[in-house]
């Protein structure tokens, strides 16, 4: 079913004027200018499907921005097929009058309302439980336990297990638990699935068993992207812009990198002693182990580089440091950069990082970024940047064991294959370019292995798929490092991307099939 048409601004890749030094861009803008003189629907060629109907409503000049009208469903295909432009929203401004006063009815009612169902009264009895290894029954310390008495209201109690695996939850006398999450520590990796038990009665002395990970288990990444040969992805250099990568993990080979955190040692691009996030991301792309003794990524043959932007022991990365990492990735010859990070909802524009991503685009480097995990909220920056490839997260039933955390992420919409779903946590929107498997992903962690979920995991899955595909296109990789190479890479990806039956806001063009 066709959606209604919307107006967009088409602007050159950089600035207001098409670049005189880029013949393809000049020709493209001149063609659109011609179309504006005859304002009817024109069929623009698609790299991977039927022609795209577009009306050019106005043109500021031959080499200047245009106003177009097309279906929002066609945006991903239009972006992928015609990379010599930016597609920008039309923004409308209103008089800056003072808003009228109004009664805050909802707030006033809430202030006097009773506590939500499931809320915990103060000074009530507590419940102590123990968390143990599912096979050895040894206590597991450092497990974050979150017990929801009312999941919708986010009410309940939480704590962290001690050396005996015990945690005391202040549940105020409540025993009925809607959801009990148990998150094993990830640095070092414990090799345990995060648990989820639903609608249970909890009592003092209960023991929760965490399931050990079988490294030969077919999770959602291995379901879609099992790598059979260690050479898959060879010839492509991928940079992971993240919390660093554990340099001594037996499944990983990091060829180099840089610590881009201002004030820290530039050579310290290993793990930053937080959650092991960068090591997990790197393993999804490039792990070289063989199950059941190790894990294998989507493209184990790539040349892997680590660009650390999260300071030692901290989880906040500066746009200055990230831009420095993007620039370093360009200088070091990366073809793809992975940014599994994001700003807050409504965080606004960040011109500095946006410029760095544009520079990467113009230097023949693809930047993949995570949509964000706010639960169907708009795509966050930098995934929302014009030249980022924005990735949503997909899950698949029966690619995680029962009573594990991923079971809580399955939610409509479901795809053409009803076992596929867009993860409950995934942010969505018109900037989405691809979707990737990101629910219950097994990968490397400092000192071991673990399971994580997120658009952070979906992004490296698609980076690995893109690397695997581009490795089969050496003539594209050999092109001069400029916007034409980026355009050729995107066209190659578009030709091998297939819809899974979700709306474009959820999956973009779909999933890359290398």
């Amino acid at each position, binding site marked *: 079913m066709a959606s209604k048409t919307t107006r967009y601004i088409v602007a050159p890749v950089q600035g207001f004027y098409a670049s005189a030094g880029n013949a393809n861009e000049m020709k493209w803008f001149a063609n659109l200018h011609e179309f504006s003189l005859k304002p009817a629907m024109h069929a623009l060629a698609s790299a991977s499907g039927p022609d795209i109907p577009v009306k050019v409503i106005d043109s500021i000049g031959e080499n200047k921005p245009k106003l177009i009208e097309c279906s929002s469903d066609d945006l991903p295909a239009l972006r992928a097929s015609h990379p010599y432009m930016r597609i920008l929203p039309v923004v409308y401004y209103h008089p800056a009058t003072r808003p009228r006063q109004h009664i805050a009815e909802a707030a006033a009612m809430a202030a006097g309302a009773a506590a939500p169902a499931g809320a915990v009264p103060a000074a009530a009895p507590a419940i102590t439980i123990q968390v143990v290894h599912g096979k050895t029954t040894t206590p597991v310390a450092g497990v974050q336990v979150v017990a929801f008495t009312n999941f919708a209201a986010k009410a309940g109690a*939480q704590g962290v297990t001690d050396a005996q695996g015990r945690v005391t939850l202040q549940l105020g006398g409540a025993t009925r638990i809607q959801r009990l999450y148990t998150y094993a520590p990830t640095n070092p990796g414990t090799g345990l699935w995060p648990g989820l038990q639903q609608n249970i009665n909890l009592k003092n002395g209960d023991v929760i068993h965490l399931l050990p990970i079988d490294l030969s288990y077919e999770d959602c990444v291995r379901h879609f992207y099992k790598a059979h040969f260690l050479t898959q992805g060879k010839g492509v250099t991928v940079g992971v812009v993240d919390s660093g990568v554990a340099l001594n993990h037996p499944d990983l080979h990091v060829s180099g990198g840089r610590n881009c955190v201002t004030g820290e040692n530039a050579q310290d691009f290993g793990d930053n002693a937080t959650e092991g996030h960068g090591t997990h991301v790197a393993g999804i792309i490039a792990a070289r182990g063989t199950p059941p003794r190790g894990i294998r990524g989507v493209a184990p043959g790539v040349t892997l580089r680590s660009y650390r932007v999260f300071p030692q022991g901290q989880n*906040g990365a500066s*746009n200055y440091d990230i*831009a420095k990492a993007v620039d370093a990735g360009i200088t070091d010859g990366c073809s793809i950069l992975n940014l599994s*990070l994001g700003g807050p909802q409504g965080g606004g524009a960040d011109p500095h*990082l946006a410029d760095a991503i544009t520079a990467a685009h113009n230097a023949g480097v693809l930047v993949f970024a995570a949509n964000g995990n706010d639960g169907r909220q708009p795509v966050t920056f930098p995934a929302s940047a014009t030249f980022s490839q924005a990735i949503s997260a997909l899950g698949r039933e029966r690619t995680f064991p029962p009573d594990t955390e991923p079971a*809580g992420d399955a939610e409509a919409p479901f795809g053409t294959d009803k076992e596929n779903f867009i993860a409950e946590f995934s942010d969505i929107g018109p900037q989405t370019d691809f979707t990737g498997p990101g629910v219950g992903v097994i990968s490397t962690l400092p000192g071991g292995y673990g399971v994580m979920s*997120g658009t*952070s995991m979906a992004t490296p899955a698609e980076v690995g798929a893109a690397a695997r595909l581009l490795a089969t296109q050496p003539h594209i990789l050999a092109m001069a490092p400029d916007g034409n190479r980026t355009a050729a890479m995107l066209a190659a990806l578009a030709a091998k991307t297939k819809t899974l039956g979700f709306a474009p806001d959820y999956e973009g063009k779909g999933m890359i099939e290398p």
Partner: protein
Amino acid sequence: MARFVLRYSGNAAPPEHAEIAAATADVKVVDRSARTMLIEGDEDAARNLASRLSGWTLHPEVQYQIPDTRKHIG
């Protein structure tokens, strides 16, 4: 004290760092590259500096997080 990114967006080659060093007396230069400086100081001092340097733009430093999917109470 806050940190700001000062970025040269002019078309010509950016001026030598030594050339602009004198202008940065009221702020601390934390890091620098060919076209960018990370500075620390009062916002007024940073804006004053940017206004005196032709072709340079000023943006606040922004922090990005690892997107988390863990559930929390409250």
